[in-house]
């Protein structure tokens, strides 16, 4: 068995310390042991190799803050009632929509609005292309169309607010950070 160089011994130190080297290559383990008897530098490295696992196990960490469990439990808590109640914002839109539907007398009224709106749009298109004079759109139609557009805008705005509210109900990890 030839003597091992220091560099080779140092590569084998951890498996030697764990006893793995003795199992996988007993001859190499014996050579490392012989080298350690004669080389003080490698002996020092061997002592370090032995001590590292113990030093790792002895590492101390701070105790977790008391707020940790509370923070975790509040992060996973069911969605708060206030968030659900916020959906009540849509009630005015629903009421207004129902009123308009009732006012235009259900399906017949809707069909009339749709056909009226279509003929108005066609008239505007013809006027735009220069083939017809400016159509005479009834004021009530314009008001109704305006009410629908306003209603759609308000409903979209409220829906975006509700979507943001739902996102904010998900865990927020940075709120415990120090200032």
């Amino acid at each position, binding site marked *: 068995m030839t003597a091992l160089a220091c560099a080779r011994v*140092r*590569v084998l*130190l*951890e*498996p030697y310390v*764990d006893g*793995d080297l003795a199992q996988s290559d007993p001859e190499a383990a014996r050579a490392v042991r012989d080298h350690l008897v004669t080389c003080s530098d490698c002996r*020092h*490295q061997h002592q*370090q*190799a032995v001590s*590292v*696992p113990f*030093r*790792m*196990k*002895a*590492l*101390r*960490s*701070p*105790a*977790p*803050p008391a707020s*940790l*469990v509370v*923070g*975790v*439990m509040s*992060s*996973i808590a069911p969605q708060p009632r206030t968030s659900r109640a916020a959906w009540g914002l849509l009630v005015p839109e629903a009421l207004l929509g129902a009123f308009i539907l009732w006012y235009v007398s259900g399906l017949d009224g809707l069909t009339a609005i749709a056909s009226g709106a279509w003929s108005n749009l066609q008239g505007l298109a013809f006027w735009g292309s220069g083939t017809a004079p400016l159509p005479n759109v009834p004021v009530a139609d314009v008001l109704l169309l305006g009410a629908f557009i306003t209603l759609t805008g308000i409903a979209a705005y409220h829906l975006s607010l509700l979507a943001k509210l739902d996102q904010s109900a998900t*865990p927020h*990890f*940075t709120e*415990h*950070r*120090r200032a």
Partner: protein
Amino acid sequence: MHAQAAAQALPMTGTPDARALLAAGQLAEQATGGDLDAFEELVRRMQRRVYGFAYQHLRDLDEAHDLTQEIFVKLYRNLARYDAERPFEPWFWKLAANTSINYRRKRVPMPTDQSADQATTGSESGFPAHDPALIDALAQLDPAYRLPILLHYYADLPLDQVAQSLSVTVPAIKSRLHRARALLRNSLAESEEAGQ
């Protein structure tokens, strides 16, 4: 009277004393069924090890807090995937390890950080280190080596569970641990030489 009757009607595993006797896996199983008290008990039981693991990995009290919270929230959201027939700890630490890796990836380096991978050491982290040389050496380790070291020697997981947690074979994890310890040893030797 009614309260007493109701308390007697509760299953034994629902009482705090009985819950304290349950294994982590059983608590996880109960939590999967919507038992928040069981989940809270599980968090209380594991918080010290998880927080310590997060702290040793990041060396920052605030970030350790954030990461620990993220690990537990992710645990809660993934409870349905836990197979109660299998041991809880490897499954949990795999989730913790993956969360830690992702946390480091998305971590925004502070303006004072010289490197995102160079963790603060000693009292800089807000907690006095009793083995600053080892802390320094750990901070210099690549996260690929630091994670198995922390899981095995700090979280006290056996080799096969570390291997399962990091989705590698036992020989591979052994080899990685040997390499990590050799790197630590070299850093310790260098710091000793520098101190002399």
